[in-house]
């Protein structure tokens, strides 16, 4: 298509053009930056390439989220992930409790071995005080039949008096009412 200057293609259309318009009026009067048309194809080509990448990603995503099989699989995966994320934590808590109880038991066994407490005595009441646990017994320890208060000094800093208190309460066999010393 050529841009003829003020020369219409046929007589009919020639009459439509106004005589007040000079030929020069058809010349381009707009300022176009230098080199614009040299750069434009490259710019457009780059945009097209990026567009294709976006389209491919969008197509894949659409294809996945609208396919029922993918949706079901995704749900199952999500359920599995949630289960896997929670289950180990639960197990960890249980392990911690068992480990702690084992540590307390070891400590008590050690004290029994060292004759710090008599294992035949029943533990009646326990109170916790800072870094020691006072264990009262309901059986005589001394020849003069006096009830004795035994302090369990905690050497293991990980075990608090509350831990031993709790352990002894949970593992009690028979508790007899406290008799004041």
């Amino acid at each position: 298509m050529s841009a003829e200057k003020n020369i219409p293609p046929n007589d009919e259309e020639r009459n439509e053009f106004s005589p007040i318009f000079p030929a020069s009026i058809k010349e381009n009067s707009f300022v176009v930056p230098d080199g614009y048309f040299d750069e434009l194809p490259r710019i457009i080509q780059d945009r097209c390439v990026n567009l294709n990448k976006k389209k491919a990603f969008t197509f894949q995503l659409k294809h996945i989220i609208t396919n029922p099989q993918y949706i079901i699989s995704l749900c199952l995966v999500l359920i599995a992930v949630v289960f896997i994320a929670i289950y180990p934590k639960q197990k960890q808590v249980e392990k911690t409790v068992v480990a702690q109880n084992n540590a307390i038991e070891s400590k008590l066994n050690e004290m029994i071995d060292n004759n710090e407490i008599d294992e035949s005595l029943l533990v009646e009441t326990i109170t916790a005080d800072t870094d020691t646990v006072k264990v009262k017994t309901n059986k005589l320890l001394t020849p003069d039949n006096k009830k004795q208060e035994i302090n369990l000094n905690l050497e293991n800093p990980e075990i608090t008096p509350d831990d031993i208190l709790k352990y002894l309460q949970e593992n009690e066999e028979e508790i007899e009412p406290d008799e004041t010393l």
Partner: protein
Amino acid sequence: MDAMSDKELLELFREESSHHYAFNLIVRKYQQQVYMHIRRMLIDHDDTNDVVQDTFIKVWSNLINFKEESQLFTWIYRIATNETLSFLKKKRINFFIPIRDVENQLLSKVMDSSQVKGDMVQKKLQSALLTLPEKQRLVFNMKYFDNMKYEDMSAILGTSVGALKASFHLAVKKIEKYITLG
């Protein structure tokens, strides 16, 4: 590049190996005409640049489905026209600008010598064109500057040849009146 017909370009485009190369040739072949067509409507270079790029991106996206029911250039021109009209519409809607103000903005750009370098007659013509309704301005531009046949314009604008002739005739009269009245 100019030796290749539209048919040859399309065949080249349909081959995977020459996809990008063919499109590059199409852009180079029609970029100036598309640019000028849009520029005459938008006046501003930056706005025109955006719309030109959007036009060719749409061409790229849809060329694979082009059924050759019309000429390639007619099809590209139609996309460019629609993109231009959409741009002008968005400008009004997004900024809540009345149509008169859009025209005034474009008028100020016509008078800006960094945008329009022509003499006073050319600037006067551009100013006169801005007083026309958008579609009438399009008709005038395509007929007067691009020397397009009415049949091609009809395919681009979706308007009958008779209506286009009438529209052009009216546009000429309005411009004459604008210029003679000063």
